[in-house]
């Protein structure tokens, strides 16, 4: 059976993957950690562009905000605290890993022969459960974005687990680095006094727009690409931009540490709470069809979303909406807490080192 490989798509696929390989080699080669981080941010951008070629719009969205945005900033914060900007090279230590990587790589490439061709529609991965989701989603849930539907409804329990993991990481970073609250107590240290008026004005203009855009991504998530994870990260990026331009102290006055901490927990509570409400109303955990009791469901006007003829699954609509809000709260608060931890520790460490 011949599969029609669309030439433009395939050429773009190859070009972007070659870019990724080139960047990866540059990362391996460079001894400067700063250059490695910078190249990783370019790597994320290129891989996100590749994800668009491979039709993974939601993943590209996430990779763009997370890979290019948050992980670069977290890595910069870590380098700042670790004070090491170049790694030392020991060529003798390169031989064994090099041989090992070559051998394992060879074996894996050999094994890859057994994998289905790129774009094979009849491969086992594409022909069973993925197809079933595509066929059932509109009937069961009524949301056009199958990715959001699977994420929030079919695999809602899984996503709850992921949210809890993110929350746990938040606690872990906060316990190890502190909540950054002591940063506000430390006396200000001098940095070079350059004039960044343009940046301050543009940041002032952009921050509300970014927050607005985060809400759009949040509530548009079951119609187009987007959802709670992406919106949460975008929201956090707005707060991080504020901290970068106006200083951590000003940001901590606007978004206090205690607020971020409790919101991170609140998100998980909202998510799990939706599941519990479903149990109370007679369904299973996170079975959104039971989110509203029949009496409540009858009160929802049929033309709430326009189109009164279409059979709406209000429980599914609102269940997805609520748990996405929970995800948004946890993710954004977690990333803000992490940023506070990394950026806020700087001053403490400097102070502590000055004293000793």
């Amino acid at each position, binding site marked *: 059976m011949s599969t029609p490989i669309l030439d433009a798509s395939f050429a773009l696929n190859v070009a972007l993957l070659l870019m990724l390989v080139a960047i990866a080699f540059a990362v391996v080669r460079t001894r*400067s950690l700063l250059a490695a981080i910078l190249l990783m941010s370019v790597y994320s951008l290129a891989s996100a562009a590749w994800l668009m070629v491979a039709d993974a719009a939601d993943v590209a969205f996430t990779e763009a905000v997370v890979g290019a945005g948050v992980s670069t900033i977290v890595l910069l914060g870590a380098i700042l605290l670790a004070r090491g900007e*170049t790694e030392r090279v020991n060529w003798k230590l390169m031989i064994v890993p090099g041989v090992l990587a070559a051998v394992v790589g060879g074996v894996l490439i050999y094994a890859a022969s057994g994998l289905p061709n790129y774009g094979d529609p009849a491969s086992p991965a594409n022909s069973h459960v993925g197809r079933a989701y595509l066929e059932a989603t509109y009937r069961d849930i009524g949301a056009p974005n199958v990715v959001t539907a699977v994420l929030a409804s079919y695999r809602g329990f899984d996503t709850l687990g992921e949210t809890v993991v993110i929350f746990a990481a938040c606690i872990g970073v906060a316990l190890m680095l502190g909540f950054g609250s002591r940063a506000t107590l430390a006396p200000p240290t001098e940095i*070079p006094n*350059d*004039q*960044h008026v*343009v*940046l301050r004005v*543009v940041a002032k203009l952009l921050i509300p727009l970014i927050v607005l855009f985060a809400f759009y991504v949040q509530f548009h998530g079951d119609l187009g690409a987007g959802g709670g994870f992406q919106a949460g990260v975008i929201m956090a990026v707005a707060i991080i931009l504020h901290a970068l331009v106006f200083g951590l102290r000003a940001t901590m006055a606007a978004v206090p540490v205690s607020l971020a901490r409790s919101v991170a927990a609140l998100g998980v509570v909202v998510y799990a709470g939706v599941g519990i409400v479903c149990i109370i109303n007679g369904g299973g955990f996170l079975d959104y069809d039971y989110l509203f009791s029949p009496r409540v469901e009858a009160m929802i006007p049929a033309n709430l979303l326009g189109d009164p003829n279409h059979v709406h699954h209000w429980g599914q609509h609102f269940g997805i909406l609520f748990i996405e809000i929970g995800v948004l709260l946890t993710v954004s608060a977690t990333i803000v807490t992490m940023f506070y931890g990394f950026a806020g520790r700087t001053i403490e460490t400097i102070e502590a080192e000055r004293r000793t």
Partner: protein
Amino acid sequence: MVEALHWIGGAFIVAGALLSILGAVGVLRFPDVYTRIHAASLTDTGGATLMLLGMGFLSPLGFVTLKLLLVWGFVMLTSPAAANALANAAYGAGVRPRIGTFQIMGDDKPGPASSGDGAAS
């Protein structure tokens, strides 16, 4: 009519792509940070304007046009601001403009907080 619009849009897009390549060549070939910033930021905003205009011709007037306008607005807002901040920071760090082998504003000074050099430390 639609066909003509497609050709116009395509022409704008190709022009934008050529401008982007031109800028990239400039970034590769120019002698110092400031000229490179100049090449990149001018062609980024110019190329983006041309390309987004071309895409506007390709799509019917509607929600997509609004989003294209938004993308254009964001690029026009952020790209020059980032270039400005970058040049500002590079100058503050002591990197001085260079033309050929001449440093027209004195030698590079080691900055107070940063060495600006790729192979630093």
